[in-house]
């Protein structure tokens, strides 16, 4: 090969790089390992982390994933293909994405879906930018974002949109219900608002009055951005049917549809909207069409919105999205079907209700909000959550998320707890018993138990 090129050594191929810029050996990088050696190391590390029973939800949910989902998704033909730029050589991925878009519009009752964004948080940021672009009746760049939206999502949205002059206005929540009281919106009546974000369920697991909120926004010429859990939608009214006219944009985290917890990623963000807004949508969109012989096929479409065509005038900078996660989600939804998805949602609802009942029987343990929830609840402990969670973690029970950092107004004692369909009665009973013991040991004093040494 060197001879064909006409050089003597491989080094000569780098002769256009100025010699004084060249680097030496990369000493800080360890020497090569064989597959067996790295396998041994990773096995040890994975075992270190994977021993706990998880009652944390807070945006990532521990659902059962049918065996076929990842066996199919990791087939080389899906796993090692790229963005379907050559449509004729990518009909597998393209048809699957079209089926995904169809399933997401069915679940959300919206007209159209894109082919995914990075995760729920960045999908919300893109939805906010999209709403500001799309709302022709509004001259403002103000978007109302309730404090019941996941605190990390609120930060991500701010971090992504603030350089584009979008103003995010925080809506407070009702301190007894844990929801947005529609009355609080009265303060904004008559003001120019581009969009209102409605989480359903909200970060506390509480159900929002989506119909009232949607109608208020539309009466005030604001668009509705629904932020939803797709599994919850098997039980709950879909955004396309909220209020008189339905939501305008719908987004959320796709992880509950077939993505393992996996330390927070890769997951995928979904984004759906009304047909009339489709040209403002960011990300890949797949369309059906015909080939030269009139045979149906699928292709990337509306590419004039995208960065590789429109460059600085694109609807977003997104290029690579989360195709493999969408592959898994599509197979996951096909395996569950409407009945299966509903059973998953109902089992989560039922388990969480059972767990909450069990926990609040303990002395001093209370449910913090009184409104209906889906599969998460804020639980108030008689002592600071931090020490209790540490003590329970030492028993390999992750009892929930400490809310004191993000919601100081709830005090130090509140945790957010979730029981998906994977949690067994035994695990929930064990959590209750261990919590009782920890509370009696602590008796309001700082934690005496230390987590296990690793």
């Amino acid at each position, binding site marked *: 090969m*060197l001879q064909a090129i006409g050089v003597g050594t491989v080094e000569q*191929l*780098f002769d*256009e790089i100025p010699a004084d810029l060249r*680097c030496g*050996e*990369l*000493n800080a*990088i*360890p020497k090569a*390992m064989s*597959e067996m050696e*790295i*396998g041994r190391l990773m096995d040890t590390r994975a075992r*270190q*982390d*994977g021993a706990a029973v*998880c009652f944390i939800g807070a945006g*990532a949910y521990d659902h059962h994933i049918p065996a076929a989902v990842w066996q*199919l998704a990791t087939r080389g*033909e*899906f796993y*090692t*293909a*790229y*963005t379907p730029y050559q*449509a*004729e*050589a*990518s009909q*597998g991925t393209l048809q699957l*994405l*079209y089926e995904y878009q*169809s*399933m997401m519009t*069915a*679940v959300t009752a919206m007209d159209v879906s894109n082919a995914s964004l990075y995760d729920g948080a960045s999908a919300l940021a893109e939805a906010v930018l999209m709403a500001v672009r799309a709302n022709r009746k509004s001259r403002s760049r103000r978007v109302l974002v309730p404090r019941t939206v*996941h605190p990390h999502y609120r930060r*991500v949205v701010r971090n*992504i949109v603030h*350089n584009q002059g979008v103003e995010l206005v925080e809506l407070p929540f009702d301190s007894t219900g844990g929801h947005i009281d529609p009355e609080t919106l009265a303060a904004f009546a008559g003001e120019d608002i581009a969009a209102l974000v409605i989480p359903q369920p909200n970060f506390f697991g509480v159900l929002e009055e989506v119909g009232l909120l949607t109608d208020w926004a539309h009466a005030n010429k604001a668009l509705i951005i629904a932020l939803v859990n797709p599994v919850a939608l098997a039980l*709950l*009214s879909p955004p396309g049917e909220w209020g008189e006219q339905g939501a305008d944009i719908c987004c959320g985290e796709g992880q509950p549809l077939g993505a393992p917890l996996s*330390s927070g*990623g890769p997951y995928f963000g979904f984004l759906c909207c009304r047909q009339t807004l489709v040209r403002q949508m960011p990300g890949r969109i*797949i369309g059906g069409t*015909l080939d030269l012989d009139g045979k149906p096929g699928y292709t990337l479409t509306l*590419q*004039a919105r995208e960065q590789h065509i429109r460059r*600085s005038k694109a609807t977003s*900078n997104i*290029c690579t999205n989360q*195709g493999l*996660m969408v592959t898994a989600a599509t197979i996951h939804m*096909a395996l569950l079907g409407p*009945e*299966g998805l509903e059973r*998953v949602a109902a089992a989560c609802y*039922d388990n969480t209700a059972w767990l909450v009942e069990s926990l609040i029987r303990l002395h001093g343990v209370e449910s913090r909000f009184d409104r209906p929830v889906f599969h998460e609840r804020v639980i108030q402990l008689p002592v600071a959550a931090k020490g209790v969670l540490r003590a329970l973690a030492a028993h390999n029970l992750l009892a929930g998320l400490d809310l004191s950092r993000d919601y100081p107004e709830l005090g130090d004692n509140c945790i957010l707890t979730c029981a998906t369909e994977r949690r067994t009665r035994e695990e929930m009973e064990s959590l209750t018993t261990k919590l009782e013991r920890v509370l009696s040991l602590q008796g309001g004093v700082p934690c005496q138990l230390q*987590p296990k040494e690793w």
Partner: protein
Amino acid sequence: MSLIYQHSRPGRRAPGQAPLAKGDTTAIPERFRRRVRAALPELSEMQVVRHYTRLSQKNFSIDTHFYPLGSCTMKYNPRGANQLAMLPGFLARHPEAPETHSQGFMACMYELQEMLKEVTGMQAVSLSPAAGAQGEFAGVAMIRAYHESRGDEARREILVPDAAHGTNPASAVMCGYQVREIPTDANGDVDVTALKTVLGPRTAGIMLTNPSTLGVFDRRIREIANRVHEAGGLLYYDGANLNAILGKVRPGDMGFDVIHMNLHKTFSTPHGGGGPGAGPVGVSARLQPYLPVPMVDRDGDDYRWLSESDCPESIGRLSAFAGNAGVLLRAYVYARMLGREGIPRVAEYATLNANYLLERLQELGYEAAYPERRATHEFIITLRRQARELGVNTMDFAKRLLDYGFHAPTTYFPLLVPECLLIEPTETEDKETLDAFLEVMGKILEEAKTEPELLKGAPHALPVRRLDDVRAARELDLAWSPSRDG
């Protein structure tokens, strides 16, 4: 092929895939409830498995085909990396699990940060951006935070060469900047004379890819870096082409202040039919305070998270949790298996393969866009002569390649070379595959002369023939609906 919906029959199920007991949901008030079930398909497990297995077979992929898609680095993705990232302990770790239950994962992330620092010559690395474009956003946002922290508000412009990826200008705009394009000179390098005229007190920074998307290494990079720095701007390195220089030259040593890497390219994590990627960012010392969170820090033998409260000047988080963690684990395994001795070999074989293809394609009669230049890990040929003389264009060549079982190179990018193919063979292809590709390229050139209709009507041997993109955009069909099949 029929849609999954067309196999659906009311009431059919894969009952073992969902809880057998029906949960009691009667306490949910009526106004919150869904009235009509979602129109998802109803199928047996076997139907689902067969449908998606068959669909997969309609794809070209690295595992099945040579995939020389320029700028995308379609190299082999080691199966071991996938298996180890999917160990049950890693899959089960909740992103909010306490540090006591995360030390194994965090050790991998810390070591990956350290390895990426070394490979790029940067001072610090954050792994959190989810893909290259989000890494670009993070990089430009850090540049903006830096200027703002100095009260230097007049810097409103980001300079971008005309050959840049579309994500560069789009990312700059998302950070609130105006974009100014810089032309390329006749040899494919940034036009330094033109650059000098636009540099000034409004310059926030420049976004460069080196080697550029033209497949050549910009030889005047040090001069460019000096001039941009003298004007008060910062340099952003688009790591899309990092594969070309791995272990040979480092962006930090070239004078860049911030870089993103595409781990799904350079570190061989799967492209997954369009993601997930991972786009970690590395920075020089002056941008370190602004790195996105979370990051992993080491304190003796313990690893701990750095979040907003540890990094008050950070541009913050860009995803709900820690980015595409599972992708990062795959990249970690890949880097450990290559090791310090394997990393430079990546650039060597990638460059060798590209130069070999370039040389042999020219022998076959193809025209190189920059014949005087060395190819890096990729190169451009232009079919302008064939388009003019034979009436067949680049897309016709690309589609005909598919008939012969090769994925097409990138077409019509970069935009400044007419009728171009951007070809990136990667280091994982053997000589026999490259020779087979060359043989087909020779055949297609012959067909273009003798039977041009074969190219214009291509592909002929795929599941569908050429698809009507115009129809797809005009008569939008974006979702199946129950009414459609009657």
